């Protein structure tokens, strides 16, 4: 989880990713950010987040995104 928080913080240092749960809903992160995150997650965790998983529920918080990464890791 720390590595993920670091990826996110590098992108938006002004956001508290430990508590924020409306990253997409409040337009804190946009489609460009999402693609950057996916690319860095791919390098850090060696998982590919498929396009069908790019939905607000999976990207609204660091916690939800981490849960998605774990789910994809389990499936691989």
């Amino acid at each position: 989880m720390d590595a993920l928080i670091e990826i996110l913080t590098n992108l938006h240092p002004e956001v508290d990713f430990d508590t924020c749960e409306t990253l997409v809903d409040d337009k804190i992160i946009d489609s460009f950010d999402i693609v950057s995150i996916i690319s860095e997650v791919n390098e850090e965790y060696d998982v590919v987040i498929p396009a069908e998983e790019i939905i607000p529920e999976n990207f609204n918080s660091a916690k939800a995104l981490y849960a998605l990464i774990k789910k994809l890791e389990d499936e691989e």
Partner: protein
Amino acid sequence: MLFTSAKFIAFLIALVFLYYLVPKKAQWPLLLIGSYAFYYFADTSGMYLIFIITTTISAYFAGIMMNKVNDKSSAYLKANKETLSKEDKKAYKAKMKSKKWAILLVCLIFNIGILSVTKYTNFVINNINTFLSDASKLQPIAMIVPMGISFYTFQTCGYIIDVYRGKHDAQRNPFKLALFVSFFPQLVQGPISRYSDMEASLYKEHKLNESDISEGLTRILWGYFKKLVVADRIITAVTTLISDTAYSGTYVFVAMLFYAFELYCDFTGGIDITIGIARILGITLKENFNLPYFSKNIKEYWNRWHITMGTWFTDYIFYPISVSGPMLKLSKWSREHLGQNIGKRVSVYLSSLIVWFTTGLWHGAAWNFIVWGLMNFVVIMISQELEPLYAKFHGKFKVKDKAWYGVFEIVRTIFLMSMIRMFDCYRDVPLTFKMVGTMFTRVNLKIFVDGSLLNLGITKADYIILVVAFIIILSVSTIKYNRGFVFNKDKYLLRYSLLAVLFVLIIVFGAYGVGYDSTQFIYNQF
């Protein structure tokens, strides 16, 4: 059958009456009949209908086949839950996914193929001809381009991709799917709806409901007000200005502002009518606009303008390209070789470039649309790169919260977007660059006072009507921007008074009847 024609209004009134008179179960079949009748009237040879039915049939069978793969897969995994290892399950799921992928691919190639052949064949021929001698030039082909094909094809592709992604099951009733593809208010200029958004209300049994009728009617009249009082009036001046290159310099600036106003009223007005009609029928459609001219930057503008098209391109083109294997590899390579800063931008910008190229092409088979799309990409990329600089500027000068700075940002965005849109007006790339250039080099402010603007095909009375309409639209938009809604829905007296006022305004000041040509919506050509 134009939305603004008496024939359409008679058709709509008859359909709404029947809709609430027939047994509730017959409502959605009636809508399908109505939608096909509407489409038939658009082309009485029946060819449009053949195209839309073909698309529907292909999507129906692709969806059903994917459903079967899903059912088979679930049954197999359930039956062998205890005996299959994790690897076996993974391999089986991958096999099933590739089957669905093959079905999806065939369906997409088929439908995008139809769209490409009908819409882009002559564009390709024209481009090939530029390399050929006069004697060997290819002849253009007389091609039928069904009305709204770009809209219903994208809507259908979205449906089938969502079935593939498991977002929802395929519709098992072919007639219900046919209604989703052909729902008549959307056939003219969208919005590009998602099945998951429409499903709940499209096939439901609807009771006659006062708020649906009155709010739907208000929305329709507001749309007609924008279309008939503004767009169909100002179009005369816009056409005059862009069809003669003698109107250069400050005239181009006037054409740019007039076209911005015309397009806004034409497109948002048309969508207001579409959403209003659906609302009267008890059907909820996604909003396509969210006060786009209040955007403070281009990115925000594209989140507020033609929303359903933007999200379609993001979900079905931008994301799949960005997270595809080759793009992730490119991203990794560029980070390693070009450094983090540049490397992380490569895949995002490349995907974005593809999306904007496609967006331009979607709008029309011509280079001016492609350049228009690429110009949007360039502006977005530059503003993205300038963001840190803006942040520093805002931090130092503390202007971000000042009202005047907000107005400046809004005006800047409108100006920039309107300038790019001139490619849409002149329909010729070099000419657009030349004419927009004269806007800065041949400034002639005299035209605002010497009566020149009265020679553009619209009278002083027309200008007064346009100014008043502008004030009304700006006031309504400002109220909505500030408090999120225009008026309290419980205030019946206010609601019905507004309905009456709008009706009178359209009848008295609408640009129709003798001396006016009713025009199709601008986005209908796309």
